[in-house]
């Protein structure tokens, strides 16, 4: 297990940040995670708490076990932590009288909305994947879904590494726009 220590800023950090790629990714994505959490909770105090919980979870992992998609992993932890907080509040609220404004997302309808949202996103994702140009779909599936490295995808498709990377980027951009229809 990674040893924890307080760094100069008084925050939890592994003794060697470079030794844990996931913690490094957390540091990189911290500003984006902060906005992500702040945009989904009404309680500002929750933002720091959730970030601290994410850091604690990352640091308590065995660093020898690699995380393939670090960004997805971190945002997924953030979503789960916010959902858990919502559920805990809901349970507490059911047993006592609480002012309505303090309930936040902790109502069962909101939690149900999240489930419906995730189903809709999956439907949109599957539909959007079908509409991608053939090569884009192929390299996206191999790299982002099957977990093959860009190098390996390049070898198996006969494309250059740069071509594969660009196709994957284009596919990711198209899919995001279709899944989150603006």
């Amino acid at each position: 297990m990674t040893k924890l220590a307080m760094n100069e800023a008084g925050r939890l950090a592994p003794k060697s940040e470079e030794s844990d790629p996931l913690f490094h990714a957390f540091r990189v994505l911290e500003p984006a995670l902060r906005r992500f959490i702040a945009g989904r909770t009404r309680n500002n105090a929750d933002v720091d708490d959730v970030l601290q919980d994410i850091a604690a979870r990352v640091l308590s992992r065995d660093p020898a076990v690699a995380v393939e998609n670090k960004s997805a992993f971190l945002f997924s932890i953030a979503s789960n932590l916010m959902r858990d907080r919502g559920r805990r509040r809901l349970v507490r609220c059911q047993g006592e009288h609480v002012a309505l404004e303090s309930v936040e997302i902790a109502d069962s309808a909101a939690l149900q909305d999240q489930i419906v949202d995730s189903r809709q996103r999956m439907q949109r994702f599957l539909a959007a994947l079908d509409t991608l140009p053939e090569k884009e779909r192929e390299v996206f599936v191999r790299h982002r879904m099957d977990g093959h490295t860009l190098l390996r995808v390049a070898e198996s498709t006969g494309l250059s590494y740069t071509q594969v990377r660009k196709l994957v980027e284009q596919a990711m951009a198209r899919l995001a726009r279709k899944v989150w229809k603006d």
Partner: protein
Amino acid sequence: MANRNHMSGEQEDEDIAAARWILAIDAGLPPERMEAFNAWLAERPERSELIARQAMLQDIAKQAARQSFAERSAQLVATRHPPERAQKSRRGFLFAGLLATGAIAFGAVALTVNTPLPASIETYETATGEVRLVELSDTTRLWLDTRTKLSASMATDRRDMTLTSGRLFVEVARNPRRPFIVHGAGFEARAVGTAFEATVFADRNGVAVTEGVVRLTPTNGGPSIDLVAGESAWITRSGEVMRSDARSIGAWREHRMTISDRRLDVVLTELSRYFDRPLTVADAQLAARRVTLSFSIADLGAEDAAHIIARAVGADVANQANAGILLKPATIPR
């Protein structure tokens, strides 16, 4: 309209930039690029949301991959154990429902498969003089030396590499539940979270370990031995295991020939593999001479390499009619 197209193009650029950053972060963003990422992020507040979307998109993609895997597993089980007609139609209805809703939670239902899925097998072969790096789906890294033939079989419960000829350096991605095994001529090497070299050419069959532990098992039924970093073991012609130190392992990945106290004829056999022209030595006394030397072969021809070796052992170089290069005792002793 033009303005709308401009907006759309700009949005597309923003989405592509977010995708590019996510790919870079997942691959491990170098510390010197962190500042650039933070500056890009801070420039527009909505960019944080684009980053979040790309991260969540990846989560959805992985869920879809798991769903697809579960469906393939179910199809495999169905093929092995064809269900009754009534059951089949029920399954068809279930899948139709799953696809219609796209509900992953139900997709992961209980398509538990105890039988491992068939392995995906890929073969790799390097040309004369080629050194290639290959990354497997589990992030294991393989370096294939010149004239190497390898097949990689990746199953859900094990990873088997069959080294037919040549030399391989492996950095194994740790996964205790999925053993990593290299099958060579007369041996089997099993490793978890380890870096080692396996060789199969010219009577040099065995492994040398640079990190972790490798269990070497001779295929003639002899006892297994555990090798730690700095150790090597070779299968002799008679099938015995000869244990020795591991020195200068894997230098060939950087196109370096690093020779440490080895017979000249053995060195020439190894060096010849990088060229179309064979390097040989006819004189028995010269052949037995020990060589210790390190040099880059990246831009060398066979003749250049022969001259470097010849200088080291005090020999002359002669071109042969068959395009081969012969090292012979120096006419004027050096």
